[in-house]
């Protein structure tokens, strides 16, 4: 068991992709930044000095403490200062990044599932199913995705009873961002499926009577996953930015559970009174997260398939 594991690790180390990765300082740096941010976000409850979601632990007297200085009333000191409600900025960033990442990853998974499904069906069936799906995709693609997400969010708000809006907000957000971003997956999977379905292994599988569902998921899908992963990585950066934008616009997550976008929205209100740290640190966290994931996606695209450029 151990021997097999170390064997596959050595093989992974000597693979093209890993070689390419070691040769690209940008990719290594981006991966390090992204990995540490993801780890910090996942283990936020263990790492954060306080729990910003717990109103009982907050002291309003602690509000507006500048970074690394003692509060005039309580004598407490915080690495990155506190916000208007006395929440430790470092903790809100860790919990906020956790929420932003959760929404981003779930939205990408949802878009992927939807896009792969539509792409496989359109590519496999062809005919009117293909025409209808791709026309819908074309129309949607000609509008910016943030507009689509906003519209879906607005519609969902109208359909959900007002007292459930806050608890459902995160899922509504995930679905709106996911629905606004499925088209790219569908297009790539569709064209790849159309190529794969005429190959001999698929023909052979059909002849021995394998059901189409099995052919699509077990035979064709693994062969079209490469480009899908590239789109998903870049899509994650876009989804994180989309979530931050919607939350900043005040139509995202409820303010009691702030994401990075909400934190920046709060911080903007205190710029004019000189409390810059409430804005700056969440902004840096968001930028680092989006930029590192984006760079990783770019690298992966070039490494896996130079033709995709």
């Amino acid at each position: 068991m151990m021997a097999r594991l170390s064997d596959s690790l050595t093989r992974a180390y000597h693979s093209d992709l890993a070689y390419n990765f070691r040769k690209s300082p940008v990719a290594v740096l981006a991966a390090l930044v992204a990995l540490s941010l993801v780890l910090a976000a996942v283990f936020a409850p263990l790492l954060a000095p306080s729990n910003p979601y717990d109103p009982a632990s907050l002291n309003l007297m602690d509000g507006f403490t500048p970074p690394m200085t003692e509060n005039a009333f309580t004598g407490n000191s915080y690495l990155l200062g506190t916000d208007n409600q006395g929440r430790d900025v470092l903790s809100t960033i860790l919990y906020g990044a956790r929420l932003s990442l959760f929404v981003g990853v779930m939205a990408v998974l949802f878009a992927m599932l939807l896009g792969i499904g539509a792409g496989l069906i359109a590519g496999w069936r062809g005919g009117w199913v293909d025409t209808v799906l791709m026309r819908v995709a074309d129309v949607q693609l000609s509008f910016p995705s943030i507009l689509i997400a906003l519209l879906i969010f607005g519609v969902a708000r109208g359909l959900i009873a007002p007292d459930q809006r806050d608890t459902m907000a995160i899922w509504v957000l995930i679905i709106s961002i996911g629905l606004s971003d499925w088209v790219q997956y569908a297009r790539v999977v569709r064209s790849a499926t159309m190529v794969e379905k005429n190959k001999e292994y698929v023909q052979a599988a059909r002849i021995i009577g394998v059901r189409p569902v099995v052919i699509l998921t077990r035979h064709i899908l693994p062969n079209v996953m490469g480009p899908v992963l590239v789109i998903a990585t870049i899509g994650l950066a876009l989804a994180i930015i989309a979530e931050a934008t919607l939350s900043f616009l005040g139509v995202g997550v409820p303010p009691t559970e702030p994401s990075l976008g909400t934190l920046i929205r709060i911080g903007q209100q205190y710029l004019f009174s000189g409390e810059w740290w409430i804005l700056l640190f969440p902004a840096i966290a968001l930028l680092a997260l989006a930029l590192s994931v984006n760079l990783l996606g770019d690298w992966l695209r070039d490494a896996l398939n130079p033709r995709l450029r």
Partner: protein
Amino acid sequence: MLAFILRRIFQSVIVMLTVALVSFALFRYVGDPVTSMVGQETSLEDRAALRDALGLNDPFFVQFARFLGNAVQGDFGISYRLQEPVMGLILSRLPATLELALISGALAFIFGVGFGVYTALRRRGIISNAIMTLSLIGVSLPTFLIGVLLIWIFAVELQILPSFGRGEVVALPGGWSTGLLTPSGRASLILPAITLGLYQMTLIMRLVRAEMLEVLRADYIRFARARGLSDRAVHFGHALKNTLVPVITITGLQLGSIIAFAIITETVFQWPGVGALFINSVRAVDVPVMAAYLMLIALVFVIINLIVDLLYYAVDPRLRVDRGAGASA
């Protein structure tokens, strides 16, 4: 030629009808129009009477046809939130958004082409590398963050530019109001225009740079140089001219995105435009305004796409011979 134009216009009409259907479904089935219009003490009989009077009990297609008929005449009903006709609300805010969008589009085009040409000609220069690196950060920065950071630098720290609103506006005949004629109006426009145009600028810049590098390798450029033409004539007379066709197309298509992204910029700068109206309507679930905005944006997109396609057809002779090859490129 005529057949192509007719087919394209037919497609546009289909798209508009689809959007209208979505828009109507929003209008009709998200929330109850009657509940949104009356107070709590209205009796059930009165509600039923109102429902009948509004024609909400008619068959689906009758209602849809009525919606279409009204929409074509610019009647989108009354805003639930502001109790005013939706079309009037939108028209009164349209000048602010269009002014902002056109100015930032122009900025993006001028600086995008300028930087693109510069970085293509001086590929290894320090300034070029700096511009390229900055553009990468510019693409990754969310629009709202750019706006907030600009406010911080220019309005809070340096205090040289206003951070919100449109400044003083002048009413022009025809219901148009402009901020371009007053000093405070022009100063207010600077930060929002940069915020909105920055992303499009980097996009145009990268496109121009890539196209320029491609064209500069072409044979006719080598021959132009061999004929002894000056660098200036080669770069701007021969090379730049041939890169501009795709650039103008992309810029045209981006104009639609600029109008849509204005939602974010207008919120950051409290710009009294259509985008800010839309975001407030989404927050308040003000369905008539949402439906009207959707139709308006769709119309803008469809018209821009149509014009760009027709221009393409006029500019590129290959499309006339073999449409398939041109369309897939």
